[in-house]
């Protein structure tokens, strides 16, 4: 007997998600490559990565991946804004609900009832989303100034570079945390929704009782 499922993510959402994810991985690799580290830390000695200390190549990858990443993120914002889909946007009470959920996970109190997204998912979305927007904004300024003999205020550019590099490192931590969270037994049933769009109806009833797909 096949498992009963409910529809969670449309094809558009899934494609957008994977565009952000794959371009994000390329951005992280090529972005770290913009720091002089792959030669020093012997990444270039890994078979197939001898090119990784070539700044022209990593910059080209960064531009291309940035184009997909920026387009996908802006697509995501405008798409859901036009469709008035705001289920993942944080709302009042999310922080206390997250604390309640986390304490329930370790055996204290009751798990609060969730809609399509849990409060902690909305908060994490906001953190990842705002980090991505900071990266996009500073990255666009950095790309723009590379377009020719464009002289912008050096201190402004220094702040952009610091914020972009720092946010990039933070983004990598968030990315790893996002992947690690999916490995938790509790979250694993959500993984199929990013491939087939569907999750188990039983899981949805149990973890997202307020959600009526």
């Amino acid at each position, binding site marked *: 007997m096949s498992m009963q499922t409910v529809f969670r993510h449309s094809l558009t959402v899934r494609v957008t998600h994977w565009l952000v994810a794959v371009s994000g991985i390329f951005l992280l690799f090529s972005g770290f490559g913009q720091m002089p580290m792959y030669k020093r830390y012997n990444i270039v000695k890994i078979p197939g990565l001898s090119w990784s200390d070539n700044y022209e190549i990593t*910059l080209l990858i960064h531009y291309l991946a940035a184009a997909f990443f920026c387009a996908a993120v802006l697509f995501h914002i405008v798409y859901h804004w*036009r469709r008035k889909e705001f289920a993942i946007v944080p709302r009042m009470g999310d922080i206390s609900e997250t604390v309640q959920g986390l304490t329930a996970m370790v055996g204290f109190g009751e798990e609060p009832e969730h809609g399509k997204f849990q409060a902690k998912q909305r908060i994490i979305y906001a953190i990842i989303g705002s980090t991505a927007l900071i990266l996009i904004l500073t990255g666009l300024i950095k790309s723009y100034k590379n377009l020719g003999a464009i002289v912008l205020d050096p201190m402004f550019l*220094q702040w952009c*570079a610091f914020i972009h*590099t720092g946010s990039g490192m933070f983004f990598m931590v968030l990315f790893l945390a996002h992947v690690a969270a999916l490995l938790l037994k509790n979250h694993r049933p959500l993984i199929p929704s990013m491939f087939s769009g569907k999750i188990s109806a039983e899981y949805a009833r149990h973890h997202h009782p307020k959600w009526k797909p």
Partner: protein
Amino acid sequence: MKLNRRNFITGTAAAGALTILPSVRTEAAVRPDSYATLIDLTRCDGCADREQPLCVSSCRQGRADVFPDPPADQLRDYWPQKKHEDWSRKRHVTDRLTPYNWIFVQQVQVAGKTMFIPRRCMHCDNPPCAKLCPFGVKHKTAEGPVYIDHSLCFGGAKCRTVCPWSIPQRQAGVGIYTLWQKYLPVGGGVMYKCDLCRDRLSAGETPLCIEACPKQAMEIGSREEIFAEALQRKEQYGGDIYGKEENGGTSTIYVADVTFSEIDKALVAQMKESHPNPRLNKIDNMLEKQNNWALLSVVSPLIGAVAAIGFAAKKTEDES
């Protein structure tokens, strides 16, 4: 705006049109009144009657207060590499660029005569060294000079790698990375290079090397004046100029009575593998080569937003 089939098609078409990008070459935005320098190779004799060219000695003396002075216990290898770059015990070296020698004079035989070529940072218009510093601590100023903030530089030496003349030079054991290098192997020192004596320029003075030159082989002025003068001398000598177009344009123009391809050929012939000197060859700017891709990344949010307007009207699988 109402979402319908027409809007969807329009939005998608507009997004598609944006992906067909024109070939761009951004015009120089360097101010015509910014500083530029002229180096006339017909006048430089390398201060043949002196132990050291005066441009070199004046820079070394006048800028000594900025030179690094690393404590011995901070001179550590760049883990996991078994090396570090220490010029503090070779401060006397004057036949190449070092953190203690920001200008040197190349000597080369061209067409049967000896030429002397003062070499230092070209202060490019679109400098990859400054534009690609991951921490933005290398600055291109509107006045012309490109300089390094020594207090924040980690000494990763990326600027040297992306500089077509490998001008910036690294000294280990100094700078901000010494705060953590014992615990975290990140950073390699501080990069040093000519900053065109920008403090002196701000005070209305002339850079030390130019002031010291007894042959007036070096001059400084507004970009407009210097470029005009360089072209006029090129005509006068029936010679060549270098630096106006190279690496996307610079604010240092060399003028000679022979072609720079001849000079470069001679430089290459005498170059040692262990001691590669900066060349005088034709160089494309690595950033300009990728202008179209940079522009694509700049307009990509717009492409995504326009496409979304079109797609938002479509029904999803569960809606259809």
